């Protein structure tokens, strides 16, 4: 407890895009509830934040920490350890912290391959093949930049996590609902869910919230969304051949993308009880394929142009696969 009697709250961004912070700001007036019920002690985007102040706090003195972003270098990891030590409840907030998100796709490439793409691009004038160095001796002295980890890690791959709040970003109404719950817990009107639970989302799939009609129709090929003359606004996208990830993705966003005519891309992660999102989605896609003939099935699957991106778009870093061998070794060799 702080001097003002309010429990302490922290929010931190590691390797993230900032969308989680915007989503929190988008709860608008409800941010006042956070202010009324908590003493915000550490939130770099919103306030004067001192890392050393956090270090000086007694262990477990922060009640609730929302941690967004993946672990991309040793500094991310260091702060994850510090906030774990100081927090009673540590929430992996948003897709990056939960499962790696889009930046986790970097785990398909080695650091060398990433550097080669960036520092030898078509607009780069770099005949000497210069690459950034972690230490470099300038005429005036040596200067440093941090080393990048060979693979991006999820928060629970470096510290124990109490709760997971999925979404890219988590929807603001879900953030509001979680704040309401925590406030009730503080007032003794509710109890916390079991440790390890997913919060701010529902248990079933995006399809449960999708207004599109499903007829258990099967398909002969997958289609690219731009190639369809007229997407039926009322019919299940998958049944129209569009590789929509709704069947494997956790319910919680309200099926925003399918409602807007776009396929679910899976940002809420796996539905309750699913161990590996990609494996679950493969099963789901297999169930709509209209064929028993192995060769034809092969042909139909070939109409999915990018399997690894399709099945592991948001969760590669957190999946059973985690990374390609070359990235894992960090040396660019397979």
């Amino acid at each position, binding site marked *: 407890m702080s001097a003002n009697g309010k429990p302490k709250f922290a929010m931190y961004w590691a390797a993230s895009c900032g969308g989680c912070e915007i989503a929190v700001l988008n709860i608008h007036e409800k941010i006042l509830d956070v202010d009324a019920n908590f003493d915000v002690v550490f939130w770099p985007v919103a306030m*004067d934040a001192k*890392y050393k102040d956090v270090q000086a706090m007694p262990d477990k003195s922060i009640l609730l920490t929302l941690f967004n972003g993946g672990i991309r270098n040793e500094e991310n990891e260091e702060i994850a350890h510090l906030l774990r030590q100081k927090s009673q409840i540590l929430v992996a907030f948003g897709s990056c912290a939960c499962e790696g998100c889009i930046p986790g796709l970097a785990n398909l490439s080695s650091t060398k391959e990433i550097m080669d793409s960036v520092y030898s691009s078509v607009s780069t004038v770099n005949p000497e093949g210069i690459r950034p160095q972690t230490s470099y001796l300038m005429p005036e002295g040596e200067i440093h930049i941090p080393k990048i980890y060979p693979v991006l890690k999820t928060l629970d791959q470096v510290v124990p996590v109490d709760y997971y709040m999925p979404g890219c970003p988590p929807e603001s109404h879900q953030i509001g609902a979680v704040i309401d719950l925590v406030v009730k817990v503080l007032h003794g009107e509710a109890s916390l869910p079991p440790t390890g639970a997913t919060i701010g989302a529902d248990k079933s799939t995006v399809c449960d919230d999708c207004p599109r009609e499903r007829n258990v129709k099967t398909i002969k090929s997958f289609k690219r969304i731009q190639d369809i003359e007229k997407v039926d606004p009322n019919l299940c996208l998958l049944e129209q051949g569009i590789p929509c990830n709704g069947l494997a993705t956790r319910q919680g966003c309200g099926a925003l993308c399918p409602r*807007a005519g776009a396929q679910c891309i899976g940002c809420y992660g796996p539905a309750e009880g699913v161990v590996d999102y990609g494996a679950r989605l493969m099963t789901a896609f297999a169930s709509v394929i209209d064929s028993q003939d192995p060769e034809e099935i092969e042909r139909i699957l070939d109409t999915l142009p990018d399997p690894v991106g399709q099945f592991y778009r948001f969760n590669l870093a957190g999946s059973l696969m985690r990374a390609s061998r070359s990235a894992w070794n960090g040396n660019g060799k397979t």
Partner: protein
Amino acid sequence: MQRISIDPITRLEGHGKIEIFLDDQGDVANSYFQIPELRGFERFCLGRPVEEMPLLTNRICGVCPEAHHMAAAKAADAVYHIDIPRTAKMLRELLYMAFYVTDHTTHFYALGGPDFVMGPDAPVAERNILGIIHKVGLEIGGKVIQARKFGHATVEIIGGRKVHPCTSIPGGLTKGITEEQRQEIEKMGRWAIEFGQFSLGLFNDIVLSNQQYLDLILGDIYAHETYSIGLVDENNKINFYDGRVSVVAPDGERIGKYAPNEYTDWIGERVEPWSYLKFTYLKKVGWKGLVDGKDSGVYCATPLSRLNAADGIATPLAQEQYEKFYATLGGKPVHKRLAIHWARLIELLYAAERWVELATDPEITSPDFHKVPTETPTEGVAIVEAPRGTLTHHYKTDERGLLKEVNLIVGTTNNYAPISMSIQKAAKSLIKKGKVNEGLLNMVEMAFRAYDPCFGCATHSLPGQMPLEVTVRDAQGNPIDVLKQFC
């Protein structure tokens, strides 16, 4: 040699890091502004289908996903060699204008504006949005929340989501808007015009009527004579969504305009071994280091640069402000960096006016919002103006439209060289004979904030403001003084 490190206190990654070296007299010999983070979208997007780029590159920046969504969708159109229907273009631009109003509002009221409204000497604790509300009145806070709400509501109606929109695809969009939605969008746009005028009025009352602030803008410490670039339409009027990039020399002469697919003739990127971020420069002029002037290829891409690079603004209220801007600041081009804040508000008003223009076009509700691409995908480049600078996406694909090469030059990267120069200039004027003025942090911070830098975008990593720590070291490298501040 004495050395000063301006380092994030916590060494939080993704933030910037500044090293200043002093010579034997204790004056600034050199300074290095380092960006310590890299994510590598250019690499891991390879193999992905091009239609996913508007969704994948959204995640470069959650603050300005709309800019990446638009640049990616337009580059994907270009890959398929398709000219999308007029309604589709208008819907995308309409979404983009609502986003601009929101983004510029956030910057002016929460990030950059407090320096002016509260005054640069105000205590740090007051230089924030709450300080503004206390000084100007509660109702202004309500207006700011309203502006952000209306902007996000319009983005969601057209883009399907408030953060990371999902509806732009090669050939147009996945959906159009109904007449009912159009009316709602128009209503919000009209409110935004009033808000834009109100904001400029506020700037006039608080900043322009105060000689001390005006002197600060007009003073030399924040001036750099560099080239300016910005997207313009066929009449050389400002446009954020489409057009050609106008390049204007420090003396105001337009040296050319380039189409998106000509960008490599104009823009080069330089790798330094001490930073993960590349320095862009004008190839036709050449890289001469971090220096001002007509012979140096350093250029700027900010709201101010966009005004400098254009001949005017196509909407009446913003054009009026544009004229007042140059009349007040002594003609074109303006090189005073703090004028970026004023330019940003003029752009906010333009975006609001354009929002209503598009929302009242009879074709905006047409069902003709998508056209199926029929040509074989190959290569395409697209440019939009992100709020923080010219944004270029360049893709090459195989015949199935799977990415083989991706190149991105994002808004803030354009400004890496001028920001570094502003830092050096602030350091040189505030560090003399080994003595570091306490005001250094403030001045450096104000120099940053004018650009509204997003190093999240620039490194395709983490956005955020700059936590700073200055360590002054003696010749043996022992710290003798530490100044620190988290923004």
